[in-house]
C-alpha cells in the first residue's frame, strides 16, 4: 500500500475509534472519584495479612499468580533474546580492547558506586512489603549496579565480573523459588500460593507472611534477567558482522 493510502486507512480508523473512545470516556466515572470496590476489598485484605504496602500485597499475595506469570514472561523474553541474538554462522567474536588500564575514576566508580547501588537494590527488595518498591524495582537497581561498571567502556573488566552462566541460573532459581513458595502454600495452606507464614506486625521488616520471600525470589529473578538481557545486547558490539549477509535465494539450500 502506498504511504498515502496507509494514512487514509489509519485516519478512518482513528476517527472511528477516537470518537467511540471519547464517547465512552464521557460515561466513565469522573477522574478522581471515590468508586473503587476492588480497592476497598484489597486494602482490607492487606491489613488482615499485615502488609503495609498494599501494592505489594496485591502483587505478591492477593494476585500473586499474576506475578508468577510476569516473571515467566521475563524469563521467556530472556531466553528468546538469547536465541535471537546468538551469533550467526560466519559471525566471530572480535577481541575486545584489552582490559588492564582501568582509569582511576572508573575504578573509583566501581569501588564506591557499585556496592552502594547493590545495597540500595537489596534494601528496596527487603522492604518491599513495607515501603514503595519491592522485588522488581530492587532487582533492576541491583542489576544496574553491575552495569555501572560498563560506564567508561571497560567491557573486559565487566565481562570478568559477570559470569553469565551464574546469572542465568540465578534467574531460573528465582522463578523456581517463587513456584516453590506456591507449592508450599498448597501443601500447608490448601491452595497454591496461600500465604502460610505468620503475618507478624504491620510495617515491620518481617511481616506479611510469604510476601518478603516472594519479593526476594522476584528480586533474584529480575536481577539475573536484566543482567543477562543487557549482556546479550552488549555482546553484539563484539561480533564482527557476517560476511555477505544479504540473502540470495537458494544459497546452498538446494540439494
Amino acid at each position, binding site marked *: *500500500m502506498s504511504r498515502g493510502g*496507509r494514512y487514509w*486507512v*489509519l485516519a*478512518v*480508523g*482513528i*476517527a*472511528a*475509534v477516537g470518537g*467511540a473512545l471519547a*464517547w*465512552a470516556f464521557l*460515561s*466513565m*466515572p469522573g477522574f478522581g472519584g471515590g*468508586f*473503587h*470496590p*476492588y*480497592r476497598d476489598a*484489597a486494602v482490607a*485484605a492487606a491489613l488482615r495479612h499485615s502488609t503495609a504496602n498494599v501494592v505489594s500485597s496485591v502483587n505478591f*499475595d*492477593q*494476585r500473586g*499468580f*499474576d506475578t*508468577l*506469570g*510476569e516473571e*515467566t*514472561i521475563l*524469563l*521467556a*523474553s530472556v*531466553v*528468546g533474546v*538469547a*536465541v535471537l541474538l*546468538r551469533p*550467526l*554462522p560466519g559471525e566471530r567474536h572480535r577481541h575486545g580492547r584489552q582490559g588492564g588500564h582501568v582509569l582511576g575514576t572508573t575504578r573509583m566508580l566501581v569501588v564506591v558506586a557499585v556496592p552502594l547501588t547493590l545495597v540500595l537494590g537489596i534494601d528496596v527488595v527487603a522492604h518491599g512489603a513495607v515501603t514503595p518498591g519491592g522485588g522488581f524495582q530492587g532487582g533492576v537497581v541491583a542489576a544496574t549496579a553491575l552495569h555501572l561498571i560498563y560506564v567508561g567502556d571497560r567491557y573486559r573488566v565487566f565481562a570478568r565480573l559477570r559470569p553469565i552462566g551464574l546469572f*542465568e*541460573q540465578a534467574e*531460573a*532459581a528465582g*522463578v*523456581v523459588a517463587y*513456584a516453590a513458595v506456591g507449592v508450599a*502454600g*498448597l501443601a500447608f495452606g*490448601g*491452595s*497454591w*500460593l496461600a500465604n502460610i507464614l505468620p503475618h507478624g506486625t504491620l510495617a515491620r521488616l518481617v511481616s506479611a507472611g510469604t510476601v518478603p520471600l516472594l519479593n526476594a525470589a522476584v528480586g533474584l529473578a529480575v536481577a539475573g534477567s536484566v543482567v543477562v538481557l543487557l549482556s546479550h545486547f552488549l555482546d553484539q558490539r563484539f561480533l564482527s558482522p557476517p560476511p555477505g549477509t544479504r540473502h540470495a*535465494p537458494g544459497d546452498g*539450500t*538446494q*540439494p
Partner: protein
Amino acid sequence: MTHDQMANALLPAVVVAPIVVACLLLALGRRLDRPTIDVVAIATSAAVATADGVLLSAAGNHRLVAWLGGWRPQHGASVGIVFVGDQVGVGAALVAGVLMTCALAYSWRYFENIHVNFHALMLLFLAGLTGFSLSGDLFNMFVFFELMGVAAYALTAVKVEDPTAVHGALNFGVINSLGAYISLMGIGMLYAATGQLNLALLSRALTARGPDVLVVVGFVAVATGFLVKAAAVPFHFWLDDAHAVAPTPVCVLFSGIMVELGLYGVARLYWVAFSGTLEAGTIQRLFVVLGVVTAVVGSVMCLLQRHLKRLLAFSTIAHTGMFLIAVGSLNPVATAGTAVYVVGHAAVKSVLFLCAGVLLNRFGSVDEFTLQGKGRDARLTGIVFMLAGLGLAGMPPFAVGLGKVMAEEGVVRAGLWWGPVLFLLVAAATGGAVLRVGARVFLGIGRGPGAEEAGAMSGDEEKRELATGMTRLPVTMGIPLTALLAAGAIVGLLPGFGDQAALAAGRFAGRAGYVAAVLDGTTSYGASPAASAGWSVEGIVLCLASVGAAALVALLGLYGTALPRQILAVLRTARPALHMMRSVHSGHIGDYAAWLLFGVGGIIVLAMLPP
C-alpha cells in the same frame, strides 16, 4: 482426595509444572545432553496432557474451581485470582498439551545449535496456552496472553539465519502487542465502570449496569486483542507472515491451538461477562460480518498461494472465519460444532504442516512448483498428506466433517440459512488448494504456474530445519504424523462425542452457572436438556459434496489453463480484484498497524449501529 481438592491442586499445576521444568532445564542445560533434554521436555508435556485428561473427565461432572492464594470468596466477592475448568476450557488445554507433545516428538534433534533454549521456550509457550484457557480473571488472561505472545515471537524466529523468519516474527510481535494494548485499554475501562477484574464479578456488575456505550466500547477493545490472535480480517496479516516462516513444529501449535484460543477468549468473555448485558442480535451481526469477510479473504488468498506453509496459513484464516460465524450465531449446537471442528482441524492441519516440514527437510523447499513430482517416491508422506487434505475438506469420518455437520445445523437453526453454502465453499477452497498441491508434489501431475501464481511469494527461500539432510522419514517424525491423522479420524467416530460436545457447549454458554460456581461454590452443572448432535444423512451428503467440490477446485488449479479461451477471459476479469487483495498483504508493518485500527473502528461501528 475430594473433587474440590483435586481441582485446587491440579488446575494451577498444569500451568506451573512446565514453567518449573523449563527453569530446571535452563539452569542445568549445559550439563545435560540433547537426548535427555528431549526426553524431559516430551515427558513433561505428556504429563501435562495426561493431567489435562484427568481434569477433563472430572469437568464432565462439575465445574472445577481453584482460588489461588486461598482467597475464596466471602459474601460473594474475592480479591484473588480464580482458575475455572469446564469441558471447553480444559479441552482446549488438552489439545494444547497433546499438540505440544507431538510437536516436541517431531522436533527430536531439531535446532541442535540452540540446545536447551528451544525446549524451554516450547514449555513456557505451553504454560501460556494452558493458563489462558483456564484463567477466570481478565487481567490474568492478559498476562498469559502476553506469555503466549513473547514465547511465540521468539519461536517464530528460531531460525534467525532465515531473513524472512526475523521479518515475520517482528510483524507478528508488533501487531499482537498492539492488539494486547488495546485489550488492556478495554480492561482499564471496564475496571473503571465496574471495579472488577474477575470474570464472574464483572458479569454481575455489568448485568446490573446495562449496555451503555462504555460497556460496548470496553467489550470491543478487550475483544480486539483476542481477535488479533484469532486472525480475524483485518487483524490477520501477522498470521500468514508468521506461519510461512516459523519452524514446522511451531506452526502446528500456532494453527492448531493458539489461533483458536483467541476465538475461545472472545467466546468466554462474551458468554461469561457480557451475555447478560449486550444485545444478542448486535453480537451476532458483528461476528457474522467479521466471519464472512475472514472466510472469503482467507479462502481466496489460500487458492492464490504457491508457498505451501503460507497456503496452509491462509486456510487457517478461512477456517477462523467459519468458526467466527458458528460461534457468533450464538447457537449452542453451532458452538459445539466449532469445538469439534477445532479438534479435528488441529489434527489434520498439524499433519499437513508436519508433512510440509518433511518436504522442506528433504528437498529444501516448500514451493508447489519447485517440488512438482519430487514426492513420487515418498509414499507414506504422500498418502498421509492426501488423506489430511480430504479431511480438511470435511470427508467423513474425520472430526472436521462431524464439526462441520453440527456447525451447519446450528447456524441454520440460528437463522443463517446461507451458512452451509459458505461452509461448503470454504471447505472446497481450502481442501482443494491442499489437494492441488498434494497431487502436484506427490503425483507429479498438473501444468506449470500461470501468470497469477508466478507472482506469489516463492517457497524456495525457506531454510532447512535439520542440520543434516534427510532421505527417508525418521520414526520420530512418522509417529506423530500418523498418530495425529488417526486421532483426527477416531475422534470423529467416538460414540456420543457430538452429544457430549453439545452438552459441554450448553454449559460453556451458561452464564449463571459459571458465576454461581465461582462466587457461591455451586459447582454442579444442574439439569441440562439432553442434547443430541452427531452425523446425519444430510450432513454426510453435504460433507461429500464439499469433498467433491474440493476435488473440482484441485483439478481446476492443476489444469485450469487448459480451459476454453472464453471461460479464461471471463475469469481474467477477476484479476484486478485478486491483485489488489494480494497487494494488501504487503508485509509492511505500518500498513498492518493502520489496518488494525481501521478494523477496530469497523467493529465499533458494527457494534453501535441500531439492531
